[in-house]
């Protein structure tokens, strides 16, 4: 039973402003992820790890190959999906914790976290309650909840992003260096959250540079350098 099946996926950037320079990123990327499995993408910076996550999330186009999401009665190839199918998939199947929080002006941290639940149809009051509980677990002080996260520290913003990605409990979770700017205590909280999500059957694809975190969460480690396209 595979939730995510990536076959021969490849990506090349064409930089029109640099005279049509073609910048190959990855090619022939193939791996599968089962429910409850955590696949860690490894390799040096610039080898294309984040690009692969973005292709799975759909914010980068998948130039070649297939990225098939299979969950319940939904089976979608992200390489060929219409924008509305990708949006529907994000609502139903894919959670994503990006490296940096894209802060919306004026929106309170707790609402940033609650927003995906609200668009799932959960009432705003319940969504905020659950968002608050999650923020507390990540040691974000309640006095910060009603402030927009733009002025927060890097570690605080990262935890807001983690809460927003984890709370809606999608069957696939993409994590781009979720513990990079966290102190040891908060890193352990996030590791516990990842373990809990794995036991609940979530398929996880993660980029982690911290060896300790990686050893704790990874079932499979894939070296992305093998897919790095020759320039």
């Amino acid at each position, binding site marked *: 039973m595979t939730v995510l099946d990536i076959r021969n996926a490849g990506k090349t950037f064409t930089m*029109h*402003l640099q005279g049509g320079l073609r910048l190959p990123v990855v090619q022939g990327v193939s791996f599968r992820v089962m429910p409850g499995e955590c696949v860690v993408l490894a390799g040096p910076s610039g080898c294309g790890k984040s690009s692969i996550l*973005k292709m799975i999330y759909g*914010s*980068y186009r998948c130039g070649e190959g297939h990225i098939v999401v299979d969950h319940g009665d939904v089976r979608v190839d992200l390489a060929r999906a219409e*924008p*509305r199918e990708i949006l529907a998939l994000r609502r139903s199947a894919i959670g994503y914790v990006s490296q940096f929080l894209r802060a*919306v002006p*004026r929106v309170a941290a707790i609402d940033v976290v609650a927003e995906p639940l609200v668009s799932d149809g959960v009432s705003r009051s319940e969504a905020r309650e659950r968002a608050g509980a999650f923020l507390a677990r990540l040691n974000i002080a309640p006095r910060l909840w009603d402030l927009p996260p733009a002025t927060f520290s890097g570690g605080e913003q990262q935890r807001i992003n983690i809460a927003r990605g984890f709370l809606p409990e999608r069957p696939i979770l993409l994590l781009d260096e979720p513990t990079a700017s966290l102190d040891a205590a908060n890193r352990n909280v996030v590791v516990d959250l990842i373990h809990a999500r794995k036991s609940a059957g979530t398929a996880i694809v993660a980029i982690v540079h911290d060896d300790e975190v990686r050893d704790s969460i990874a079932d499979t480690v894939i070296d992305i350098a093998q897919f790095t396209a020759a320039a």
Partner: protein
Amino acid sequence: MTISREEPLLAAEGLTRWYGRQLGCRDVSFSIYEGEVLAIVGESGSGKSTLLQLLSAQLEPSEGHVRYRMRDGVTRDLGLLGEAERRFLFRTDWGYVHQDAAQGLRMSVSAGANVGERLMANGWRHYGRIRATAETWLDRVEIDRGRIDDTPRTYSGGMRQRLQIARNLVTEPRLVFMDEPTGGLDVSVQARLLDLLRGLVTDLGLAAIVVTHDLAVARLLSHRIMVMKGGQVIETGLTDQVLDDPQEPYTQLLVASILPA
């Protein structure tokens, strides 16, 4: 009858408009569904305002059609609607937010009347209920109720724009057209307006077509983007995909030209 969720709310097919020998826009086709926000981006003269007028039946296309699924579930060709039906759409099922609030508001009547007028056009007669609804809407767009009897002339630019939004949304339209809704406003005022629009669009499940030259506005508000240049759609897709991984030379230029804050 049951309405298929798969049928678009509005579909444009091969929309083309010439102004004499001058091209307005050419061969534009797309669909929009309930709850979706589509941003049309491009520089001045790219044809985005012409397109918005074609879509909202204010301008007749030289070629092509716009089909719209009416409240009764029947999809109609807008070009074949009678004048009364078109007016009904404008009064009830559609909103149109102008860049210049003075074009979308009646500047010499009170704020309350500006909001109430749309309700009266929909057959509301009870003064108390109209006023109460207008007050609720002023709250929603963050205008002090104490200003309900003032005319929009006495309002700041940001307040006028919020009042225009209240006037448009009070009849619970299913589709809202917005032409540069944050254009000409101070950045702090823009941020507030964007945040407000985002919230309302999500809460009401509206479909919206937003014309903007500001990619940051498109990023914040829209699910999908259409990039126009020289009257034609040159790139289209999911908003973050078009902005993070633009394919066309012109789109790459637009994205690369955003000044970092």
